[in-house]
């Protein structure tokens, strides 16, 4: 009896308030939901980017609103050996550091993917360089590379390997290599941990199958690990290239672009010219000139990472 009664009971249609009806309106909802995101992107991303690009075409200096000067800033830069030196060093720094980071990071990841005693502790230790704020590690390197108080020099002298202090950052090439070493040190954890995550998605039975098929350890890496790691390797590499190319903190904190502008990256040079130098237009032009390189790196990732054929199709395993 009561069951039939319950079935018969019909929910009375309630008169909905205007506010409720407003929130049921699809167009209104779309706008309401997108507004915060668009606002944030506009204020913090598009506006600064647009302003930066605009400044690159003006002769603005600090304290003086500039006028549009067309490509004059770029023409000036193209004649400027310091700018070309920064372009060279940015590319060199990025290439060498990326190769170093990936060689060492992959090696570490392969090592950590094995059964090791105290594996989690090791993983935590490896993450350390990345957790420490960059400026802090930059200051540490500043001391490590100090002409007089360098710990490396001290150790080398104490053990009798060298007689004088090592010159890390006082001449051009040693300074360039020292900065690259610091960048590699800082970048390894990101690479190693990301690749480790990739390695762990490879099913152990694939290695067992390869072992039965007669593959040596190197062949297992060459034919199983590497091709299966390639997609994640490409993503991580793109990120790493972008972060390295736009690096600022390490270089600025350790050498400030010196000695004699030999270690300027485009980012540090842009800052140097724009803020302490006051030439906002020129600084912005340097920053804008990074865009082609970054677009190239992104396109590289887009095409190199484009999902391979074997990854496509239904995913049921």
């Amino acid at each position, binding site marked *: 009896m009561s069951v039939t009664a319950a079935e018969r009971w019909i929910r009375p249609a309630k008169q909905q308030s205007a506010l409720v009806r407003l929130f049921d309106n699809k167009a209104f909802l779309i706008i309401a939901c997108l507004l915060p995101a668009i606002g944030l992107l506009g204020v913090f991303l598009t506006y600064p980017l647009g302003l930066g690009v605009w400044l690159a075409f003006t002769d603005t200096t600090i304290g003086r609103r500039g006028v549009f000067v067309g490509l004059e800033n770029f023409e000036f830069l193209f004649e400027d050996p310091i700018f070309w030196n920064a372009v060279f060093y940015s590319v060199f720094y990025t290439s060498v550091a990326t190769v170093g980071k990936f060689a060492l990071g992959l090696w570490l990841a392969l090592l950590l993917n094995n059964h090791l005693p105290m594996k989690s502790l090791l993983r935590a230790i490896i993450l350390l360089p990345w957790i420490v704020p960059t400026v802090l590690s930059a200051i540490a390197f500043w001391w490590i590379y100090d002409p007089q108080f360098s710990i490396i020099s001290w150790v080398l002298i104490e053990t009798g390997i060298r007689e004088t202090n090592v010159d890390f950052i006082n001449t051009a090439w040693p300074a360039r290599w020292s900065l690259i070493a610091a960048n590699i040190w800082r970048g390894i954890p990101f690479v190693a941990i990301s690749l480790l995550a990739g390695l762990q998605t490879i*099913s152990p*039975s*694939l290695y*067992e*199958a*390869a*072992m*039965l*098929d*007669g*593959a040596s350890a190197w*062949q297992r890496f060459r*034919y*199983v690990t590497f*091709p*299966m790691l390639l997609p994640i390797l490409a993503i991580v590499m793109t990120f790493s290239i972008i972060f390295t190319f736009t690096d600022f903190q390490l270089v600025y904190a350790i050498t400030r672009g010196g000695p004699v502008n030999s270690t300027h990256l485009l980012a540090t040079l842009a800052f140097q010219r724009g803020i302490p130098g006051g030439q906002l237009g020129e600084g912005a032009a340097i920053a804008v000139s990074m865009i082609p390189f970054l677009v190239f790196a992104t396109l590289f990732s887009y095409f190199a990472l484009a999902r*391979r*054929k*074997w*990854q*496509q*199709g*239904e*995913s049921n*395993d």
Partner: protein
Amino acid sequence: MATVDIREVRKAFGTTQILHGVSVGIEDGQFVVLVGPSGCGKSTLLRMLAGLENITGGEIAIGGRVVNNVPPKDRDIAMVFQNYALYPHMTVFQNMAFSMKLAGAPKEVMEREVQKAAKILGLEQLLHRFPRQLSGGQRQRVAMGRAIVRNPQVFLFDEPLSNLDAKLRVQMRSEIKELHQRLKVTTVYVTHDQIEAMTMADLIVVMNHGRIEQAGAPLELYDRPANLFVAGFIGSPAMNMMEGRIADGHFAGPGGAAWPLPANGHAPPAGEVIYGIRPEHLRLDPDGIPATVQLVEPTGSETQVLLRIGEANVSGAFRERVSARPGDVLPVSPDPGLVHLFDKKTGQRI
């Protein structure tokens, strides 16, 4: 093609003993099925054969050669994994040719051998697909193709059909059997499905808790199970087991029913025993033991009836149609040639 000898093999992971001395002799060309409940150590034994786990104790010989310290690739075996373990970034062709590629075989040989295996398995049209683009059954076949191409002395299968649906499983079962009849390669096959074991094996090895309970031909295990475990494991529906004692040349079972003793000549000693009778070996018999019908399940070809005798549930499977309804009394009697007696304490066959 080779014999496989497993002698007193033991396995421990750390301090936990998994296999406690397992011995099996496998003849050349035999199809051996390792069967047992989950966790009994079947896969572990198979992986030890393959060389993927090291051997804690005992010896394994393939073709007369002790392989305890021989690496997997030199054991001349091929294995089909439960998840197939196909290389996802290689096409079917590349998957099957991989071992030859590693061995540095010339292109024509690879092409020829892969085509040959693909023909056997009906994979010719799929050679350029990636594993993702295949159905479960096709993947299974590729995994077998990869094994066939290697032309091994021994095939190892670890539950190769457990990822397939029931119908495909039956089909692949007969395909594997046919393949074996054709290639006549010694095969060790792991499953926990006793029907698969019964239908495919020349020799069934029933394992439990890291020990072999019984090894023998399928019908031997069905007709003469060595102990309660095998009796309960082999056969479907499962054997009825009743507790009681031997008295006056009868088995006095639940509810005081008197069951005939096995007609094998020698009289068992009096005492507590377990009396086993398979459902399909019960007959409808007007002079039999009265049983109350609880449930009738006609399947068409036979009728399964759940009966109650005393406080024991007994199931029967009858070829004839049974028109009884729950609550009716249905007299049944066992075929005396087909009853089993087990010692209550040790569980061993008497």
